[in-house]
């Protein structure tokens, strides 16, 4: 057994009192692809950010080759030591050429700091010959496909003499063929004794490319296994097995579901335009139900909600509300049809941060306060009522929403949509970044909303325990499709993960588990 190229011991990190990494050990050998698995929030990205010097650890020790230190002081130090990170969001400059991107900030120069373009292009050509010979160093990055952009980023990392290459969800934006090409490149790098850390939600890929796999859960190390000695089922169990973490109580005896309220017959994106590309999405929501829409990041849940809400105009939509076909070409049409949407990112696309609480509450129901002359007193009264009933902590209703806590901001958004009183409320990540108390209140609000006659809720959440405790039924999405439907009885974290993470393709899976993967 050769000595590991990289060793991380006892890595710890807390954010504001919450431990996101609890003394994690991790190692990578030269010429190995080491997969790193875990649910959203398990600590994979944090661990890699420590390694790349982007985040400072609270404790632990990193040994890379001959260098041993407590931490890399900054990203540049990690780079010099030989760590190359390919970021989830690419860190490249779109309008510049491939060569300029590879040599950003360290272009070969002649005297007086004049860039030697010819030299730079020659150097880039030599590097690309090994990684992606079909890319010309003169091309502009923005003209390349996502896959090629990623190749450029890998080339850049290698040009910095990276001995450890970190790939964080590298295939999220890639097609099947592009993924194959990426894997070819990774295999070539492996034979050059580069150590590769491969983070992915897609278990099939983990089994295709990796030599060993490490599983993290809730910031703690679970296991490190040789890939060919394990199965997808075992990995899923390691990833979700909750152990001590208390799971919230399931919804008390469910109301028998009423007649169908929303019938999504078909939502499809025109092929080749969007990623993820929605394909033949169809599902049903009945009166009184809370429906969960689960899936991994990038599976198309938010896109489905936005399409339903009329905010993605390119998609083809065939939807019936209470048996009647409805037109959903803009959010205002969707609101008229009886839909409401609480967006995923409350600061970016939800709140009017520099406006007062009362203005935020009334924003989606302005016509209720007068078609022409605006009823300020009525608006204020309504805001006061909502503030009291939702227990929003604030100075008064004239306070800006910018400085409210996350939980209170979320309640302001809910207040806005309760004021509209849609028949179906779509909530996207309703409790992200919200404290436990407010989370429970939001859950109670959603249950109360669905329990009112003629109403229903559609919940999108990456928080599995949340979806399991709220939803009467769960649709699991994967790569732009509905991968399956789970009743309350069938639903478990493992069942959801199995539908969300697998992919039907002739992957070299151990035969024992193949039949169990949908």
């Amino acid at each position, binding site marked *: 057994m050769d000595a590991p190229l990289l060793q991380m011991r006892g890595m710890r990190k807390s954010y504001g009192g919450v431990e996101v990494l609890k003394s994690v050990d991790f190692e990578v050998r030269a010429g190995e692809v080491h997969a790193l698995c875990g649910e959203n929030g398990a600590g994979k990205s944090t661990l890699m950010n420590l390694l790349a010097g982007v985040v400072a650890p609270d404790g632990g020790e990193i040994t890379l080759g001959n260098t041993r230190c407590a931490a890399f002081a900054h990203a540049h130090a990690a780079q010099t030591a030989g760590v190359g990170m390919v970021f989830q969001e690419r860190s490249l400059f779109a309008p510049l050429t491939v060569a300029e991107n590879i040599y950003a900030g360290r272009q070969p120069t002649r005297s007086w700091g004049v860039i030697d373009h010819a030299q730079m292009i020659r150097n880039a050509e030599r590097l690309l010959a090994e990684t992606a010979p079909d890319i010309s160093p003169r091309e502009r990055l923005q003209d390349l496909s996502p896959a090629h952009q990623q190749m450029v980023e890998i080339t850049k990392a290698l040009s910095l003499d990276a001995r450890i290459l970190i790939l964080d969800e590298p295939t999220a934006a890639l097609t099947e063929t592009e993924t194959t090409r990426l894997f070819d490149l990774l295999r070539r790098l492996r034979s050059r004794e580069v150590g590769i850390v491969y983070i992915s939600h897609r278990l099939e890929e983990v089994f295709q490319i990796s030599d060993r796999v490490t599983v993290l859960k809730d910031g703690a190390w679970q296991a490190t296994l040789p890939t060919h000695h394990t199965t997808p089922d075992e990995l899923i169990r390691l990833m979700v097995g909750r152990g001590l973490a208390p799971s919230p109580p399931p919804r008390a005896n469910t109301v028998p579901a009423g007649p169908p309220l929303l019938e999504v017959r078909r939502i499809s994106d025109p092929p080749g335009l969007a990623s993820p590309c929605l394909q033949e999405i169809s599902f049903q929501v009945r009166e009184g139900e809370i429906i969960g829409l689960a899936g991994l990041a990038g599976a198309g849940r938010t896109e489905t909600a936005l399409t339903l809400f009329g905010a993605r105009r390119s998609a083809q939509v065939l939807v019936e509300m209470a048996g009647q076909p409805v037109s959903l070409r803009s959010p205002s049409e969707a609101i008229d049809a009886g839909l409401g949407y609480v967006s995923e990112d409350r600061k970016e696309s939800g709140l*009017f941060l520099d406006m007062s609480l009362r203005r935020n509450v009334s924003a989606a129901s302005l*016509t209720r306060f007068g078609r022409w002359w605006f009823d300020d007193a009525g608006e204020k009264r309504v805001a006061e009522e909502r503030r009291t009933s939702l227990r929003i902590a604030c100075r008064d209703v004239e306070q*800006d929403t910018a400085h409210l806590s996350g939980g209170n901001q979320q309640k302001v958004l809910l207040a806005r949509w309760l004021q509209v009183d849609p028949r179906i409320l779509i909530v996207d990540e309703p409790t992200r970044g919200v404290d436990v108390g407010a989370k429970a209140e939001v859950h109670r609000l959603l249950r109360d909303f669905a329990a009112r006659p003629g109403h229903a809720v559609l919940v999108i959440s990456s928080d599995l325990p949340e979806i399991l405790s709220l939803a009467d039924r769960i649709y699991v999405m994967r790569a732009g499709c509905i991968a399956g439907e789970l009743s309350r009885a069938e639903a478990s974290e493992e069942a959801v993960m199995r539908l969300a993470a697998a992919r039907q393709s002739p992957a070299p899976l151990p035969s024992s588990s193949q039949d169990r993967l949908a």
Partner: protein
Amino acid sequence: MSPPAANASPRRVGLSRESGLLLLLVVTVVLFRLLFPVSWQQFATFDNFASVVRNMAFEGILALGMMLLMIGGTFDLSVGALASMVGVVTGWLMKEAGWPVPFAVATGIALGAASGFANGVVVAKVRVNALITTLGTMGIFSGVALLIGGPGITFLPPSFARLGQSEWLGLQAPVWLLAVLALGAHVALAHTRFFRQFYYLGSNPKAAYLSGIPVERLQMLGFALMGLLAGLAGIVYAARVATASSTIGVGKELGAITACILGGASLQGGRGTAWGALLGVLFVALLQNMLLIKQVRPEWQGIILGAVLVFAVGVDSLLNRKQSR
């Protein structure tokens, strides 16, 4: 009814930008009184006041439209050129084409609205940045004005000139027009549902869209209203001097933006009042008047006004930053 202070986007505890500007205006006037008692005799007369407000009417009308756009998070650089073009076209129609005055005026106003609407379509539907769009149309409008009117069209019919020259209570028609428009803009922005939507649009366009606010329609309508007001300003000015000049609007768009920012608007949008726009224009007009009375060379006016703008907005930004901590 809520107090007027709550009509703007209510955002802070201290002075609103509007009251801050009012304070600055009062301080400036008082200083002038104390420092230059002799000139004060010249300044503090009704005739002087009447001339100040007469001169501010043109930019005042532009500033009201600009304020609406800036609340909605955008602006229009073409309005000065548009005012010139509409003035010249209206003058040409009545003088060279022999149209009756009311028809020429109505056509001019419609041309203004249509040109503004065209700006709006390009910005909202084609999604070209407003700076680029209106920079382009500024060139087009001023070119058309020069093509049709040469340097200008003089000796316009007296029945037209009366529109801009008649007086009531010692103030000329353009001043009254500005007053009526300002009142209308105030009522619209502070008390109507429709115009309130512009605050949401400017504060967060994405959130506004997802709240069912018709974002594109508002933008197009805002530009159309701006164009209509610019046309009106161009016509009224041409009537007052009985001449349609092709260059009357040069630089006036920047004057209007300056006034709006002094009066509480922000380039980020979501903030501002009609009252603030009016106050901004009045402040600039008074300052220019004082400099004129003191016979300060015109070169200095730009320097002083520029410094005041940066100073006022800088102080406001510093105070704000302190408060938000």
